């Protein structure tokens, strides 16, 4: 015998964490990660539902969600890289919807490990264009 409430509560907490992350995070990739957490919470609920009803419909839906998540990440990351190319930054607070590409040379110095990052010298960073 198992108690389905355990995975369900896990899923609820994961969903809450994901929602928190989406609202809290400023970095676009981190927002995407939080979205993944929420999607996973939903998957967990779907699979737990299967266990309670002894069917596989929930699993099928979970598979669909996983596939959609993969597609979403693909497009989302393409957007993020595009954004990084245009602005040298993926801070979503700084993106206005009618934003024009930043003028001037696209590779101004602060693109890499800049003062704000507070990273150790020589921290590995690359710019997107060269990849």
């Amino acid at each position, binding site marked *: 015998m198992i108690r389905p409430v355990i995975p369900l509560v896990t899923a*609820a907490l994961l969903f809450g964490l*994901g929602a*928190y992350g989406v609202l809290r995070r*400023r970095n676009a990739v981190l927002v995407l990660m939080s979205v993944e957490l929420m999607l996973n919470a939903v998957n967990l609920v779907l699979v737990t539902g299967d266990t309670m009803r002894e069917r596989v419909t929930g699993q099928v839906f979970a598979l669909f969600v996983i596939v959609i998540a993969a597609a979403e990440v693909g497009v989302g990351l393409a957007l993020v890289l595009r954004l990084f190319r245009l602005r040298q930054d993926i801070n979503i607070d700084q993106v206005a919807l009618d934003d024009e590409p930043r003028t001037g040379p696209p590779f101004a110095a602060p693109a890499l490990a800049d003062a704000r990052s507070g990273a150790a010298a020589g921290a590995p960073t690359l710019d997107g264009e060269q990849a």
Partner: protein
Amino acid sequence: MTLQDVLLSVVGLVAVAGGVAVVTTKQLVRAGLWLVVALGAVAVEFLLLGAEFAAWVQVLIYVGAVVVLLLFAVMLTRAPIGRSSDLDRPALPATLVGAASGLGLAALFVGVFGQFQVPAPAVGTAERIGDSVFGAWVLPFEVLSILLLAALVGAIVLSRPAAPAPQDASADAVAQGSSR
């Protein structure tokens, strides 16, 4: 509490702890690695719930592909070792919404299914899922394929460098074109 309950709780705790680390860590790449922990724990939950196929799909797509893509993107953009200070927005609204949705849902689940018990599931086979996907859900499946194709094309279009700037373009556009 049976053995499965204990395992589910432990793995659930790992998943939640991983999730907490994902949304609170100040280190970009570590967030991605913690996401591996959280998603892997969810996959183990799937296993414990008898959804073996879904568990391995989760590992294959999420851990193997999605997280790699995310890490790839993080490293392509800006991934200093150590803490970044500009990752977060003000905490209050996010905390409110997150706690309300998470704890509210949790309370709801506890209230509805608190003492509910079901027999431990047998390990499912891929056959039942295949029957289901290609039986009842074949139309959504096909729609999903089209969605994937559209996403693929969209991602390619988005990440393609812009067409080379025309001859009479402004200096700015030329500078951009030459940098590619």
